[in-house]
C-alpha cells in the first residue's frame, strides 16, 4: 500500500514539477515575479518574457524530460536482458559510441546526427557484448570490463575527430560531449522526438517480456520465447533511445544506471510497472537536476557532471551490495 502511494505521488507530482521548471532560469527578465506580474496584472515585457518561456525554457524542459526518461528506460531494459544490474548505456560503451558517431556527423556532416549516433551506438554495444562473451556466457564483470575498453576506444576516436576539427566546431563538440541541454530548442526537440519515441514505444510493448528474459535464456526458451530474437529487438530499441538522447544532449553518464535502481527500490523489479515509472521518474529527476544546474551559479554546469558525481558513488555502493562474480 505504501508503495502505491509513493508511485502515485511520483506520477501526480510530475506535471507540477514540469510547470514549476518554467519559472527557473538565469534570465533577469523572466523572473518568477515578472511572470506572475504578466499573468495576473498583464504588466511587463510581454514579448521578451513569452520568448524566454516558450522558445527557451519550454523546449528545454520537454527535451530534458524525454532524454531522462529515455536513458532510464533504456538502462532498465539493458539491465534486464543482460541480467546484469551494473550496466547501462554508459557502461556498455553505447554512449561513447553514439557520441563519436554524433561528433563525426557534426564535423563532417556525412550522415544526419541521429542516424550516425545510432549506428555507432549499436556498433559499440555489439563490440562490448562479443568481447565479453566466452563459452556462450557473458559474466557480469567481463561485460563491464569490455564496456570500459569499448568506451575507451570510442573516446579516443572522438578525440581524433576533435583534433581535426576547426576551432568553432571543436568548441561545440567539447561542450556537447560533457552533457549539456543549454542549447535545446524546438528544432532539436523535433529531431529527437521521433527516434526517441520509437525506441520507447517498442520497450514499452516488450515490458513484460523483459521479465521472462531476465530469468535467463534457457528459462525463456523452454516457455516459448526466442531469446535471441527478442533480445536483438530490445537492444536495438534501447540503443535507438539512448543514442538519440546522446545525439541531442551529449553524454549524461551513469544516469541509466541510477534511475532503474531507484525505481526498483520503490516498486520492485516487475518491468510491467517499472518501465512506465522509469520514464516519468527518469524524466522528472533529470529535470530537477537540470533546474539546479541552471540556477546554482551564474554560468551553467554541464548536466553530465552532476550525474557522474551522483552516479559514481552509487555504482560503488551497488557493486559492494550485489555480490557479483566472474561467472554469473
Amino acid at each position, binding site marked *: 500500500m505504501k508503495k502505491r502511494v509513493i508511485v502515485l505521488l511520483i506520477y501526480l507530482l510530475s506535471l507540477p514539477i514540469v510547470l514549476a521548471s518554467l519559472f527557473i532560469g538565469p534570465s533577469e527578465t523572466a523572473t518568477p515575479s515578472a511572470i506572475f506580474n504578466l499573468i495576473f496584472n498583464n504588466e511587463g515585457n510581454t514579448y521578451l518574457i513569452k520568448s524566454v518561456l516558450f522558445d527557451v525554457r519550454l523546449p528545454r524542459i520537454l527535451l530534458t524530460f524525454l532524454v531522462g526518461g529515455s536513458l532510464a528506460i533504456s538502462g532498465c531494459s539493458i539491465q534486464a536482458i543482460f541480467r546484469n544490474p551494473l550496466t547501462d548505456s554508459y557502461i556498455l560503451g553505447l554512449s561513447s559510441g553514439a557520441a563519436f558517431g554524433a561528433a563525426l556527423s557534426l564535423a563532417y556532416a556525412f550522415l544526419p546526427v541521429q542516424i550516425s549516433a545510432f549506428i555507432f551506438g549499436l556498433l559499440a554495444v555489439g563490440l562490448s557484448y562479443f568481447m565479453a562473451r566466452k563459452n556462450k556466457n557473458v559474466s557480469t564483470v567481463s561485460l563491464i570490463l569490455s564496456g570500459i575498453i569499448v568506451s575507451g576506444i570510442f573516446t579516443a576516436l572522438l578525440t581524433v575527430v576533435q583534433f581535426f576539427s576547426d576551432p568553432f566546431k571543436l568548441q561545440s563538440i567539447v561542450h556537447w560531449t560533457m552533457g549539456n541541454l543549454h542549447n535545446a530548442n524546438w528544432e532539436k526537440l523535433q529531431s529527437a522526438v521521433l527516434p526517441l519515441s520509437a525506441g520507447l514505444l517498442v520497450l514499452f510493448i516488450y515490458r513484460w517480456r523483459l521479465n521472462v528474459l531476465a*530469468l535467463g535464456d534457457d528459462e525463456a526458451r*523452454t516457455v516459448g520465447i526466442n531469446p535471441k530474437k527478442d533480445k536483438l529487438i530490445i537492444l536495438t530499441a534501447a540503443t535507438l533511445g539512448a543514442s538519440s538522447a546522446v545525439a541531442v544532449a551529449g553524454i549524461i553518464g551513469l544516469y541509466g544506471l541510477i534511475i532503474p535502481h531507484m525505481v526498483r527500490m520503490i516498486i520492485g523489479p516487475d518491468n510491467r510497472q517499472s518501465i512506465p515509472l522509469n520514464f516519468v521518474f527518469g524524466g522528472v529527476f533529470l529535470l530537477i537536476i537540470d533546474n539546479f544546474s541552471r540556477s546554482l551559479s551564474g554560468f551553467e554546469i554541464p548536466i553530465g557532471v552532476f550525474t557522474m558525481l551522483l552516479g559514481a558513488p552509487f555504482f560503488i555502493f551497488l557493486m559492494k551490495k550485489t555480490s557479483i562474480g566472474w561467472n554469473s
Partner: protein
Amino acid sequence: MEQLSHAITAKSLSFGYKNTLVLDQINMGIEAQKLTFILGPNGSGKSTFMKILAGLLTPQKGTITMLGKDASKLTYPERSKLVGFLNQQHKAMFPFLVEDVVLTGRAGFINFIPKETDKAASIQAMEKAGIMHLRHRKYTELSGGEQQMVMIARILAQNPKILLLDEPTTHLDIVNQSRLLNLLKLLVAEGLTIVAVMHDPNLAFIFGDDFLFLKDKKIIRSGETMNAWDIEFLKTIYHGKLQSIPHNGRSLLVPY
C-alpha cells in the same frame, strides 16, 4: 500401435561436446502417461540427455519425436505447449516476486501482456504446487527447496503435456520430496507424461513406473527377465558396495 503408446521416441541419437562423445546412437521410447525416471552414475550424461529432449541442445545425429511430431521442426511456442523443462539450477538476478516468476511460465500463450486467464492459471499452478503462501515473497530470498517448488509451479502454469524434470528433488527435505513425488504421480494420473532425472535410486523405485539407466553413452534397461531394482542388474550400473533390502514388493538399495 507401438508408436502411439510412446510420448517421446529417440532414434539413433548422438551428441557430443567438442571432442567428447556423451550419447552414442541412442534408441529409446518413453511411455505416455507414465512416470519415468532416468538414473545413472555421476557424469553419465543425464542432464545433457534432458537438455536435448527439452530442445536446449541440438543433437549432432538422430531424430526425436514428441507426441508424433518431429521435435526439430517445432517452433518455440509450439514446443512450450508440448514440453516443460525444469533446469537443474537456476539463478535469478532480480528480486522478482514468486507470483511474477510463476507467471512467466505462461509466455507461450501471451503476446505481450498477461491476461486475467494467465493470472488465474498461475494461481492454480501455485495452489497445486502448494506454494500459495510464498506468492508475495521475493524469489531471491527463498531457500533452495522453495525456489525449486516455484520453478515447478512455473512449469505447471505452462501446462504442457510432457514434463522434463532434471533432479526435481534436490534441495528438498525428505517430507517435501515425498510431497513432490506424490504430486508427480497425481499429475501422471491426470494424463501427463513425466520424465525425471533422479540422484537417489530408492526414491525412484518407490514412486516410478519405468526406469532408464544411462551408462557408457548408452541407455540401458533392465530387460524382460529382471526388474530395475534387482541387485544383480544394479551392480552392472553402479560399481561399489551395494546391497538390497525388500520394500513393498520392490527393493531398495543400501550402501555398506
